[in-house]
C-alpha cells in the first residue's frame, strides 16, 4: 500500500488577477506606481503576527522580489519564512471587502483576517 505524500508547499508568493487589479486601483488613487507591492509581517495583532502591505517606489535591498500578474511583489526576507506559499487574494462581499492572505503557514487566524499565528 502506498501513502499519498502531501504536495510540497510552493516556495513563492502569488497574487490573483483580481487582487492585482485592486492593487492598481488603489495605487492610482494614491498617485503611485501600481506594480510594486511590498509584503511583510510585523509582530502583534490578535494572533501574534500581522500582515503588512505597502505600495512602494523602491524595494529594500534584501527584499526577495517575485513577479506575478504583471506586478512585482517585494517580500521582506525575515517575513518570508512566515509567508512562503501565500496567495494574496481579494474578497469583495456583503460582509466586507479587502485583501485576504491565503497562507499555508498560518495555524490560527484572527476574526478579521489581518493577523495569524504559526
Amino acid at each position: 500500500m502506498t501513502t499519498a505524500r502531501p504536495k510540497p508547499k510552493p516556495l513563492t508568493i502569488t497574487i490573483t488577477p483580481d487582487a492585482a487589479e485592486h492593487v492598481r486601483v488603489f495605487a492610482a488613487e494614491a498617485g503611485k506606481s501600481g506594480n510594486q507591492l511590498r509584503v511583510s509581517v510585523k509582530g502583534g495583532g490578535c494572533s501574534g503576527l500581522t500582515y503588512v502591505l505597502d505600495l512602494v517606489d523602491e524595494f529594500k535591498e534584501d527584499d526577495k522580489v517575485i513577479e506575478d500578474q504583471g506586478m512585482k511583489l517585494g517580500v521582506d526576507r525575515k517575513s518570508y519564512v512566515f509567508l512562503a506559499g501565500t496567495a494574496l487574494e481579494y474578497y469583495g462581499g456583503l460582509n466586507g471587502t479587502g485583501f485576504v492572505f491565503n497562507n499555508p503557514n498560518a495555524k490560527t487566524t484572527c476574526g478579521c483576517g489581518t493577523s495569524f499565528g504559526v
Partner: protein
Amino acid sequence: MTAPYAPPIQQQYDALTQAVALIDRSDIGRLSLTGEDALDLLDRLSTNALQDLSVGHGEITVLTSNKGRIVDVLFVLQEEDSLFVLTGPGNQEAVSSWIDFYTIVEEVTARDLTGETAMLSLAGPDATTILQALLPTQTEVPVAHQAVSAMIGDVQATIIRTDFIGAPAYDIVVSETDGPQFRNTLLETGAEPAGVDATEALRVERGIPAFGKELGESYNPLEAGLMPLISFTKGCYIGQEVVARLNTYDKVQKSLVGLQWDGESAIESGARLLLDGKQAGIMTTAATSPHIAGVIGLGYVKKAHATPGTELLLESPDGPTPVRVTALPFDTE
C-alpha cells in the same frame, strides 16, 4: 562573612506599613529596549495602551499569549532614547525571547541589564519624605508611574515610583557595583530592611498578585483582577480577541480571592482547594500576617465559589484543612 542585619518580622512589617522599609528587589528582571519601533511593538504585544507614553512616564501592561494567558506583567518606562522594562523575578530572558520572536521587520533590540544593575526599593508611608531628603534640592520625588534620574551622593540612580506593594513604593536602580554602598546610604536614613516573609504577608493582605504565583500562563488577566491594565479600545494585541470575548460574554471561569485558615504551618502553594470532594480551586500563596489570626493566602477558585465566606477544604499533608474564602484586600483593622 556575617549575614546582613535583619530585624524581627513584626518590626519589618511595621516599617512597611507605618514608616519605611528597604527591600532588595534585584531579582526583578530589567531590560533595556532600543530601536524606533520598541514602544509600538510592545503596544502590539500587550494589553495596555502605551503609545502616548512620554519621557519619564511609565505604565504597567500584560504580555499575553494568543490564548490570552499571562506571559508576564511588565512595568514599561519611557526613557530618553530607550524603554526600561521591569519583568517578573528571573523572567527577563523569557520576556526578551518573547519580544525577539515577534521582532520581524521592526527595529528593536533588547539588552538584559539585570546582572549589571541592582534594584533597591523603599516602601511605606514615609518613603516619599525619606527619598526627598536624599535627592538634590531641585529634584522632585516622582509621582505614581513616573521616574527621575538623579545623583544620590555620588551614585547615579533612577528612581521609579512603581507602587509595587501599594502606595507609596519606589524602585531605585543603580549600577551593580554601587549596590552595597547605596544600600548603606538607604539604611542610614532609618529604613528597616524587610525580607520575604514580611513583604509576602503585606502583599497577600493587599491582594496583589505576583509573577510565578498568581501570574503566569495558567491564568488570564481578567481572572487575575488586572482589568485596569487592559485597554479595550486601543486595537489589536496578541490575545486581544480572547480577552475581549471573555469580558463581553462574561466567560471568566475563576477569580483571585483571599483565603484564611487556622493553624500555624504553612501549606505549600499549589495545594488544591476542594468542595464536596471535587476541585474548586488552587491555593497560590500562603503567608502569616502579624494582624490576622491563622494563615492567610491567595488563590484561584471557580466563580461559583468566590463569594466571601464560602467554606472549602485545602489539601495538606496533615489532611484536609477548612479554609474560608475572603474578600481582597484583607481587612486588617
